[in-house]
């Protein structure tokens, strides 16, 4: 077995509480994470058109060969794959990913991944201690929130031994020991009632939010999985691994005590960031520090296992711990408006979605929508949508608690909201209108707008719509949007520490296998339906399917295109990804090799979606994306009176454009997507991928070139193979 892999994947059959083992070597060609997860799903799920809640749905929780190793960003993440119930109109085969330490403990226990299938007759949790796996009665955990659940399991999983000392594994003297609490992933009450926007929660602040996998756990009567291990992860070249880590720190890193500079932003370059507050760094740190940014209480930082970035807080109150970015941003504006200042109630509000186990992205846009309907006299007590939700309490933790309790209890509008906000809108007869006006900001596959708009940041929209869920990949977003927007006059390149031209040139040389085409990065309106953008979309999909979600380099740090601390402002990509991977595994792959595997995985996924019923005609954004400009005072902002949440922070939207022979950052507010041109772009994209342009289905020739003849055979059997001539 190559370094980095343990060699075994644990297969849990919840129906008969049995376990078997899958050899990792059978799937090693796919890398790890989403690659192996997708390939296993393909093999084990004979009928890919089943519903997410069907017991035959298989969920994989995969590590990567770099999990549990000294690789920054890739050590602690866990990738979850399977059919999720969140997407609309079809719950696509999808993915989610969380930080923390679950995958590392899984590997210390000797497992590269966990495959979950079947359905238990009664609630269970699974206890994994090295190679000992038991199904435990979860009836006393059912109904508990996720934090309480984890605390109870920490005690039960180690037979009541107290933490703070060595925990003996097994009874024999001289046996293995650990000081670690078991890593637990679990669902809260929202997942138990199979709410389609339910999350999986791990520790604090770590969630597989999008996809609705919490609901799948609930449908399978699976409350939690706990894992702790004391085994070793083999590293092929230990010397090379520690050298890579020190190399990264020395040449690309930042002291935690260094003063912030705006040019640190692209690619989230910093070696680390100090906890604490500094008003001069709000734009950069607020997303990472969460409540600690606001709260007048002592705080420190937390990182995922093995990571060099310290992007999450820990607080004196212990409430709001490890929550950053949308974990706290989803409610910040509402809370600020409600109280006019920070109050500790906000810490509690931040913890509530995690305790209940619900996806905050959906909650954010869902609350915006319900509030708008309330303001219009449509939703409220005795109204068309009859609810006693106390809208006057929005901004307080109490409002969230009432809303979540309604979902859990199935009372009031809670029963409808178990299907998520988009399906509730459909049931209430509001979907068409609220998608047209933009009140319901769920623009793609029923997923909530990320705060980064499709019309301005088209790559985000394209990557999402050709895929399965809100893309949530920030490589270009940091470089092209968050970096320039920090400068008052970003259109004047002479005032920028990194000019638009420098940014584009550096990025373009790193876009293997499409390197050397800077127009891939021209985000001007005239270029947004071009083959260049199709190539960029393809690059993003391949990169994500291998390096990001396969090898599980964290999106908060990778890709690292531009780095002002690096040689000639060059970041770690593509050298960094490869350096760590080869050191751990002992393989000798190139960045391009990884991208080829990513393409292969991407093609299997498109085949799965095809078998689930996808056709190119379904790849459409919500109507407001085509019909309304994104501009202040117009479109959804106008419709909402005031856009609450993340997107409300942005008063400008820079992107790099190539105009009159020059690169610059330009504000692209005020544009929309052209329906006809987007349809033409889909054809260009399908051609580039080698898929049938009339259906979007994979072609045999393409699949065979990628070594996926077996996928073509299955598609042919199901009469879903793309036509070669199209």
């Amino acid at each position, binding site marked *: 077995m190559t370094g980095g892999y343990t060699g075994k994947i644990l297969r849990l059959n919840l129906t008969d509480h049995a376990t078997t083992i899958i050899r990792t070597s059978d799937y090693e060609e796919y890398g790890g994470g989403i690659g192996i997860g997708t390939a296993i799903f393909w093999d084990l799920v004979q009928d890919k058109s089943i519903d997410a809640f069907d017991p035959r749905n298989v969920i994989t929780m995969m590590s990567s060969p770099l999990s549990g190793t000294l690789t920054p960003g890739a050590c602690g993440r866990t990738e979850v794959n399977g059919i999720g119930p969140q997407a609309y109109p079809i719950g696509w085969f999808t993915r989610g990913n969380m930080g923390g330490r679950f995958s590392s403990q899984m590997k210390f226990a000797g497992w590269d991944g966990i495959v979950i299938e079947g359905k238990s007759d009664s609630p269970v949790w699974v206890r994994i201690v090295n190679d000992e796996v038991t199904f435990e009665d979860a009836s006393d955990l059912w109904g508990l929130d996720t934090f309480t659940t984890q605390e109870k399991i920490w005690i039960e999983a180690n037979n009541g031994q107290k933490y703070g000392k060595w925990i003996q594994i097994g009874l024999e003297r001289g046996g293995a020991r650990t000081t670690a609490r078991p890593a637990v992933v679990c669902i809260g009450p929202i997942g138990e009632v199979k709410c389609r926007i339910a999350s999986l929660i791990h520790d604090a602040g770590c969630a597989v939010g999008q996809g609705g996998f919490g609901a799948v756990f609930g449908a399978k009567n699976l409350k939690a999985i706990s894992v702790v291990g*004391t085994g070793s992860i083999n590293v092929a070249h230990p010397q090379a691994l*520690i050298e890579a880590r020190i190399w990264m720190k020395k040449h690309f890193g930042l002291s935690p005590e260094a003063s912030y500079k705006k040019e640190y932003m692209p690619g989230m370059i910093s070696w680390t960031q100090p906890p*604490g507050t500094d008003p001069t760094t709000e734009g950069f740190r607020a997303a990472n520090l969460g409540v600690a940014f606001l709260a007048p209480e002592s705080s420190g930082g*937390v990182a995922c296992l093995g990571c060099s970035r310290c992007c999450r807080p820990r607080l004196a109150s*212990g409430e709001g711990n490890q929550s950053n970015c949308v974990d706290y941003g989803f409610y910040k504006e509402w809370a600020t408006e409600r109280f006019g200042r920070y109050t500790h109630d906000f810490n509690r509000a931040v913890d509530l979605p995690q305790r209940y186990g619900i996806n905050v992205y959906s909650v954010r846009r869902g609350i915006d929508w319900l509030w708008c309907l309330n303001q219009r006299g449509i939703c409220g007590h005795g109204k068309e949508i009859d609810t006693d939700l106390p809208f006057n309490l929005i901004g307080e933790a109490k409002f969230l608690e009432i809303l979540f309790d309604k979902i859990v209890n199935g009372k009031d509008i809670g029963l409808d909201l178990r299907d998520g906000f988009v399906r509730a809108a459909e049931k209430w007869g509001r979907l068409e209108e609220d998608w047209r006006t933009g009140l319901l900001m769920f623009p793609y596959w029923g997923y909530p707008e990320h705060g980064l708009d499709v019309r301005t940041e088209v790559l985000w929209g394209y990557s999402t719509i050709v895929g399965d869920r809100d893309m949530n990949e920030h490589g270009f977003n940091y470089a092209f949007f968050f970096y320039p927007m920090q400068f008052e006059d970003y259109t004047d390149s002479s005032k920028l520490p990194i000019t638009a031209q420098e940014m584009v040139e550096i990025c373009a040389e790193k876009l293997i296998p499409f390197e050397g085409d800077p127009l891939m990065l021209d985000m001007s309106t005239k270029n947004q339906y071009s083959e260049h953008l199709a190539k960029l979309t393809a690059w993003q999909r391949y990169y994500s399917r291998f390096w990001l979600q396969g090898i599980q380099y964290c999106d908060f740090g990778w890709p690292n295109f531009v780095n002002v601390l690096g040689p000639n402002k060059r970041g770690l990509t593509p050298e960094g990804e490869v350096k760590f991977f080869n050191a751990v595994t002992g393989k000798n792959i190139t960045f391009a090799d990884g991208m080829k595997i990513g393409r292969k995985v991407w093609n299997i996924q498109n085949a799965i979606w095809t078998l689930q019923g996808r056709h190119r005609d379904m790849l459409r954004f919500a109507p407001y994306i085509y019909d309304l400009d994104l501009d202040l005072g117009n479109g959804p902002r106008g419709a909402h009176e005031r856009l609450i949440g993340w997107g409300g922070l942005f008063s400008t939207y820079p992107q790099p454009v190539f105009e009159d022979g020059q690169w610059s950052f330009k504000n692209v507010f005020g544009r929309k997507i052209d329906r006809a041109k987007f349809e033409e772009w889909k054809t260009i994209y399908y051609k580039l991928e080698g898929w049938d342009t009339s259906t979007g289905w994979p072609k045999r020739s393409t699949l065979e070139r990628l070594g996926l003849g077996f996928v073509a055979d299955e598609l042919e059997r199901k009469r879903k193979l793309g036509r070669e001539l199209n």
Partner: protein
Amino acid sequence: MPQRARQVKAPLAQGYLVVDSKKCDGCCSCMLACSLVHEGKENFSLARIQVIMNPYGHYPNGIDVLQCRQCVYAVCLQVCPTGALHTDAENGNVRVIDEEKCLGLQCMKCIDTCPYLPSRIIWNHERNVAMKCDLCISTPYWNENGGLDGKQACIEVCPMEALRLVRKVPKQLDAVGYDVNLRGEGWPSDKT
């Protein structure tokens, strides 16, 4: 048959690893680096520095960094029946273990008698020997000079600069002398 414990008058170590648990972010890179350079693989249970985290802890609690203290009065030295656990005179009297002399499972006295929780002597269940922090004097998987005049892997990789090697003997009472303020001028001041 294990020999009777000898009373060892240990000269002071000339270097001590101190930490700042307020600065530490719990990434455990120190543990990963320690296991990697000493054992050539990643294993939390084999790391000679331990970081215990409680995700729901109240700052500054919730993260405990637990390293060998190179004790002035090193009980582990005194109870070792074979002299496996000894001071390395050539390397500043750092307390180290000669694994070839370690009796392993037959003994484990150093582990049992370490007065600190968790024991700073690490049990290697894979090789059946006791291990402890040697300040990287012997790192078979890292081509760097360690020890007092060299580098320590945990310090080198720590992203928070929350570990440091000091020469002055820390206060021996409780954790105070070993969990110190390593925050410099660039560090944000505490809000309370």
